[in-house]
């Protein structure tokens, strides 16, 4: 099969480009930037009995170690729990592992203006870890169409100073402790 020299040059360059793209992505996933994908490590959950779930039954933040936290979030039409009615509070300088699932239909969980972005699918738990370096505020929105009120589904993440967060967290612990 006869191929013009120029086209052979182009074909070779195209292959280099493709390999270059794949190499860039592999670099991003490597130890340097260390970007991890949302995958199946979060496991599954029964969406019908979410209320009885030990974690998703009362979603929120939980301290798991020095500067280490787990956050459980339930997305349902048209709120994030927590996030919408009260902000999702995390301390600055912490490493937070999110566990996001959906109670009814497929939702999205996007921290506005950042690379933290996942789907929330009923029955699946999206598990991902991010680092909050500085105190501040982020918006959260649902970026997958989830019904007629989709456009009002939003929330906030409040990154608090460590001392402020600690006193809030203690108060929370006491309250839930008191209820039990």
């Amino acid at each position, binding site marked *: 099969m006869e191929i013009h020299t120029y086209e052979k040059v182009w074909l070779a360059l195209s292959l280099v480009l*493709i390999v270059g793209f794949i190499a860039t992505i592999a670099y991003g996933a490597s130890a340097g930037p260390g970007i991890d994908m949302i995958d199946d490590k*979060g496991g599954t959950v029964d969406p019908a009995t979410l209320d009885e779930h030990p974690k998703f039954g009362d979603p929120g933040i939980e301290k798991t170690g020095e500067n280490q936290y787990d956050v459980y979030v339930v997305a349902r039409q048209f709120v994030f729990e927590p996030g919408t009615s009260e902000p999702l509070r995390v301390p600055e300088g912490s490493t937070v592992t999110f566990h996001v699932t959906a109670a009814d239909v497929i939702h*999205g969980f996007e921290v506005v203006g950042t690379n933290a972005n996942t789907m929330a699918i009923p029955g699946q738990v999206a598990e991902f870890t991010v680092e909050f370096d500085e105190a501040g505020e982020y918006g959260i929105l649902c970026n*997958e*169409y989830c019904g*007629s009120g989709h*456009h009002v589904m939003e*929330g906030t993440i409040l990154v608090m100073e460590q001392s402020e967060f600690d006193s809030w967290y203690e108060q929370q612990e006491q309250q839930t402790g008191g209820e039990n």
Partner: protein
Amino acid sequence: MATTRSDRAFVDKFPHEAAIVKATFLVAFVALGIGAFFGLIQALHRTNVLRVIESADYYTMLTGHGVLLAIVFTIFFLCGVFHWAVARSLNRPAESRLFSWAWVGLMTTGTVLTTVAILGGLVPNLGMSADVLFTFYAPLQAHPLFYIGLAMFIVGTWLAGADWFLSYRAWRANNSGERIPLQTFMVLTTMIMWYVSTIGVAVSVVFFLIPWSLGLIESVNPLLTRTLFWYFGHPIVYFWLMPAYLMWYTVLPKLAGGRLFSDPLARVVFLLFLLLSTPVGIHHQYLDPGIAEGFKFIAMTNTMFLLLPSLLTAFTVVASMEHGARQRGGKGYVRWLGALPWRDPAFTGMALAGAMFAAGGFSGMINAGMNINYLIHNTLWVPGHFHLTVGTAVALTMMAGSYWLVPQVTGTKLYSRPIGLLQVIMWFVGMVFMSNAMHRAGLAGIPRRTAEPQYQNFEFLTPIGSIFELRVQIALGGTLLFLSVVLFLFNILLTSLGDESDRPVDAALPEPLSGPEGSPRILDNLAMWTGIAALLVILAYTLPLAGIIQNGGGLFGGGLPVPATLSAGLDFVVVTVSSAFNTLLGVIA
């Protein structure tokens, strides 16, 4: 005047095929008009420029816009193009008129049912709606009519494919040693890809969604139906694109005054699409939980190699245009561009569509990058991307192609070339405004598929300009695009009402510069390529699907989760085998 028109016009040579083409174009253009109108309403609504509907109704409009344009307009039009191309390139009519009308009828009936279910959402108290958007992710549920119409439509496309395969078989009986004519080759490989890929959506709709919407089964596994959708959802992208490629390879060189640069490479490109279009669907699910990273990486490698046929197309098609420009007296390294027939709306429309596809190709490369996908996933960047690809590369090529094709099936001259030229340029300018602003808005984090992205708790930030400017650009672009569609429909309507012409268009298609003779015969071995395509699909999908069913509560969801992780070793084997395949394909090409 030695010859009469009968010797050359498609409508006189193949009157029955021309009637089929006219019928499919009619449905396509009606869908285009309604879908574009919905698009205008959405562009003005979500940018808060003009709100004539409730925000809850926005999603009904959006479903209508997606289904009518991305499914009905594109597929009806491509069925017309394929029917024309098969009859023209095999130089024989379809085997059975009744059969041809049967698939047109079935597809149209399906379309009407689905459209009724969607538009029912605008009528309160009707109890019928299908506000599930073009992707119909369960557990969002539509009226059963929506799914039933969709199933009928897809079966209709299967029959249409059978029609073209029957023509090919009959032609083959009389031409045993010949190479498959290029246009027919393109139609057949595209349809094989379509058969392989629609299995996914057919299983999803027939076994899960229809029984579920009728109440026969309790629940579905949302990740399973979603994955089955994207098994079909990415190849459909190439199903839209292939008729545009068919026109770029076989018609555009002629419109430019040149000849196709290489017939064998065109065949290689279509084969690569057949092989690689389906085992990539998971790249729409990079951010889905429940699918292991290894499978996402495989989907990405396949997707990146899928750039190859498009990059090859860029070269071959531009070279064919350059050939035309040089034959028309063009000189220099870039000055030859000025010698192209820019007055011809069919040429200019296709050339502009190709230029925008080059830009859309770039945003597609970002979408395809597994981890950079975090940046733009489900933001307005994504509709910005596909309005360049399906919304321009495909739609504008189809409109431009209509200026050359419609006169061939009506026997009348195009009503106005200048209006046609203005129309394609308006589309280009409108799309530049809308799509560019959408990409930028997406980088600012503005989500797609949202009626009013004006939130209470935070603001979007953009480094250059302001969000307000971006909104104005989207609204302006959307308005120009709608006006462009109005001009197009008006021009085509007046064309079809015009007087019969002796020479409606110049319909001759010149031979390629480099013909199929020197290329390996194995390129035409459709059975073998089908086998390889199926194998690649099995490799890419068996394990992810098994994982989803095992981990996610079975076929129908709702069951107890059974933990079962796939071993890393197995993962590795799949990655290796698939990459080896890809490299091999690269070498063959």
